[in-house]
């Protein structure tokens, strides 16, 4: 039900950091213990089921990981993947309806009415406003008619009445994740609910939900200074790849997505080969797997959707964005980097860790502690996604009286140090130690684990990579860090964006009261 929150944080395990000699449990033992507890099965339709037994309490968590996100939205339909995700909470032909046969007829009429309205609305020449008003009225009436068959929110209601906790979903640019936790005795009920909505989505109440999504955009992007800055930042950094597009959707596009488009997206991307379902908790694979197979076997096979052809061309011109408004200053800059499969992926994590992690980090010590010009400063990657080449982003919040330009200069100074001299042995070891420890810390949480296992299974074709990545972490050298820094952190590869605080404008602050005297206290 939500867009991924703009992260000044790295997401999940991909980014978490590692070490050491002090760890009693060795990596091999970790992996071995998980090997014993994890069962995977690829169904004939291509869907992968993964069960991780962790019987600490009689509960389980799941993540359904669909390898499609807003990066896959067709041109002119930005926000579509997210819109579909909202639809997946609206029920099926069996749940959420009073009479599906009749509802289906009513929904087809809604779609026809919307098409008629949109055709008139989009006319470049000769739009007939009177006709438009009539068509809008028809559209509303068709929706009201269809609404008569709806049992509102029945899908989520059944889940919540059966103890579902944390019912939600997230649509990112790269993927869509559905998740919740439940008492273990509801496993079969969950399997029915989850597989039903993957297979049998009905575009119920679509146009009202579209308004809800537009409100979500107003909240996350339009009415948030950071949201506005980030949207402009990535739109400037990318010229070709969909990573540059508003992920929640440009207002003109998301407001005209149709139910037909959402269902087409579903048909293309919600196929077995594009879905991994991970379950972690008090579940016995031997008992559960046959039952899960029965339910999730219903997902259509379909071909794995073709990969995107667009590759962001090499940036050759430095770009900047300045937003002048009445909010406090903020500085962000980004450099293009390769995707997560790049052999240097762990090197980027090492740089982020050394520059940003905790009060020992270079940016904290330089900008916050010593120069005392920033309240917070860090660098992280990748943003806004990891499946395709993303950005390595640095940012700083200036202290009062300090400017974005000072942030930029101070960050560049630290980057130059990284390029000119090796990091210390201690810094490199610290990165490795913290990454390993953080990986271990994450293993005690069913939902986090389900999410990571599904993600690694999708991105690497094998959940074991969650543990095997530590090998790559261990192999990072000081020379790697210097090499990558020199390669990537160059002005021609940079896009920067900042907010400069503008003087207040004299707006009619009382306008909302329609002329009544407010009388500031």
């Amino acid at each position, binding site marked *: 039900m939500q867009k991924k929150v703009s992260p000044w944080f790295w997401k999940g395990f991909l980014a978490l950091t*590692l*070490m*050491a000699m002090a*760890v*009693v*449990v060795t990596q091999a033992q970790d992996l071995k213990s998980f090997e014993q507890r994890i069962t995977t099965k690829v169904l004939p339709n291509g869907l992968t089921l993964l069960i991780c037994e962790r019987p*600490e*309490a*009689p509960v389980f968590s799941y993540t359904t990981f669909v390898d499609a996100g807003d990066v896959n939205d067709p041109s002119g339909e930005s926000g579509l993947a997210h819109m579909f995700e909202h639809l997946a*909470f609206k029920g099926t032909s*069996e749940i959420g*309806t009073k*009479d*599906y046969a009749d509802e289906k007829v009513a929904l087809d009429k809604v779609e026809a009415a919307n098409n008629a309205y949109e055709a008139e609305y989009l006319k470049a020449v000769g739009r007939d406003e009177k006709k438009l008003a009539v068509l809008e009225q028809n559209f509303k009436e068709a929706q009201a008619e269809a609404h008569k068959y709806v049992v*509102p*929110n029945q899908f*989520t209601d059944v889940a*919540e009445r*059966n103890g*579902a906790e944390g019912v939600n979903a997230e649509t990112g640019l790269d993927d869509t994740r559905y998740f919740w936790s439940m*008492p*273990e*005795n509801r496993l079969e009920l969950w399997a*029915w609910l989850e597989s039903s909505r993957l297979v049998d989505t009905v575009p119920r109440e679509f146009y*009202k*939900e579209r308004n*809800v*999504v537009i*409100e*979500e955009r107003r*909240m996350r992007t339009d*009415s948030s*200074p950071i949201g506005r800055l980030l949207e402009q930042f990535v739109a400037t950094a990318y010229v070709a790849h969909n990573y540059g597009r508003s992920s929640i959707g440009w207002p003109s596009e998301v407001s005209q997505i149709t139910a037909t488009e959402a269902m087409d997206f579903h048909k293309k991307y919600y196929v077995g080969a594009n879905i991994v379902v991970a379950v972690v908790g008090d579940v016995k694979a031997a008992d559960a797997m046959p039952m899960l197979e029965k339910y999730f076997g219903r997902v259509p096979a379909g071909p794995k959707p073709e990969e995107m052809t667009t590759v962001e061309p090499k940036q050759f011109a430095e770009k900047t964005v300045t937003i002048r*408004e009445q*909010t*406090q200053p903020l500085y962000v800059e980004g450099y293009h980097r390769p995707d997560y499969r790049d052999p240097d992926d762990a090197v980027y994590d090492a740089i982020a860790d050394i520059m940003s992690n905790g*009060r020992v980090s270079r940016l904290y010590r330089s900008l*916050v*502690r010593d120069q*005392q010009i920033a*309240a917070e400063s860090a660098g992280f990657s990748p943003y806004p996604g990891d499946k395709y080449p993303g950005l390595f982003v640095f940012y700083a*919040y200036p202290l*009062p*009286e300090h400017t974005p330009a000072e942030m930029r200069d101070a960050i560049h100074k630290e980057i130059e140090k990284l390029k000119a001299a090796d990091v210390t042995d201690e810094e490199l*070891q*610290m990165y490795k*130690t*913290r990454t*390993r420890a953080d990986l*271990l*810390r994450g293993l*005690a949480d069913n939902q986090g684990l389900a999410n990571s296992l599904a993600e690694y299974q999708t991105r690497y074709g094998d959940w074991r990579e969650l543990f095997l990545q530590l090998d790559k972490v261990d192999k990072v050298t000081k020379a790697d860090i210097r090499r990558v820094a020199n390669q990537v952190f160059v002005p021609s590869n940079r896009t920067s964006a900042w907010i400069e605080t503008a003087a207040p404008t004299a*707006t009619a*602050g*009382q*306008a*909302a009261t*329609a002329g*009544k005297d407010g009388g*500031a206290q």
Partner: protein
Amino acid sequence: MKRIIQTSLVFAACAFVFSSGAIHAQQAKPWEKIPIPKLHEFKPHQPRRIELKNGIVLFLQEDHELPFVSGSVLIPGGARDEDAAKAGLVGLYGQAWRTSGTAKMSGDAMDDLLEAKAAHVETEGDEDSTSLSWDSLKGDTDQVFGLAMDLLFHPQFSAEKLQLAQQQVATGIVRRNDDEGEIAERESAKLVYGANSPYTRQPELATIGAVTVDDLKAWHDRTIGGKLIVSIAGDFNPAAMEAKLRTAFEGLPPAKPMPPRHDSFAGPKPGLSFIDKEDVNQSDIEIVGLGTDRHNPDVPAIAIMNEILGGGFASRLFQKVRTELGLAYSVGGGMSFAYDHPATFHVAALTKSATTVDATKAALAEIAGLNTQPFTDEELARAKENILNSFLFRYDTRDKVLAERVRLEFYGYPANYLETYKAALEKVSVADLNRVAKKYIHPDKLAVLVVGNGPEIKPGLDELKLGPVQSIDITIPMPKQPPAEQKQ
């Protein structure tokens, strides 16, 4: 737990087949035929509680799943107890305590040592408490515990680190009007408790500038003699750990209780307030009143009423304002309860500027409806199932069980509070709901705050007919000098 479904299941346990077609689907309710077996036997693992002669309480929660040990010392007294002229002191203390370090080791040296081990020792200031916490890999337990105890008993507050903390807090102060939601939350709480209440007063540049190193030391000396609650979780040897904790805490003088607070809570002045923000296209609507505390025996019934009003997807607010009207992405709320003082009644909705009046009316109608739209058996059953079937998630990890026990100990509630609370939830009836709605829901006593883009709000707020619209001035007071140069 879920009787209806369980019984209907007995005869259908093996009979369930998928109905791939749609015919008669609406009557079928296939999910009701899915077997729900008995839940696996589960007894939450309780920590061992040890009360020392001086009143200090220890909790030991063993958990050998992963090779980590974590701990915390919870200290009574927090921001609500600080001097109003130095508002922000406890927040500064929470930062500077750790970053300053001890006589033996500076905070910076401690950072280097701990981070190299992927370990942490942190301090924090909260509304009613401060705390010291730590965590490390098992092999570093003794060393990290030693550092934490050094910091607890021998802190050395430094002017330099206080200044650093003041700069951080100052940044938060000057940025506090950037985010619409932050403004709405802060200012609506002020409407309920009063702008100068210990629960809502804001640190200002002047008040944080007035805080000195001596203030931090005095705060530490004043609170460290209180009834500390020490909790340890993870992969440790219980006998050795107990001995270690006894050595550290047994010799301390008898804990001094915090003096009781005598706050008064009048609740808001009814009416409509407005804050103009030119850079938004969505209004944040907050409808607020006074809430209650957990000692109130009506809390179980109120919790169920909350679930019906604004708890989940099926709640009245969600169904009406989001699903039916499509007016909001974010909508919800209810009457909250705190452990030792009344919390707030709070319903919020975010809607586009043009529908501010519609959404406010719709939310107010749902609140008023608690008294006029009778609660149904179906609503009661749904709310109970929602709460009771997921109750397990309050204690499904050993960390959660420990945190709950510490919380109950801190506020003086019995250790079996959750069990009795759950039993009371099960007994709530429709009559109880009607009674608590009548007792606590008074739409004429609620205040409404709108934060939004004035010129875009059409129709205007006067359409709500809630009396004259009061503008709230949220200008941030700027002292003559920057705070960093004021202190010491």
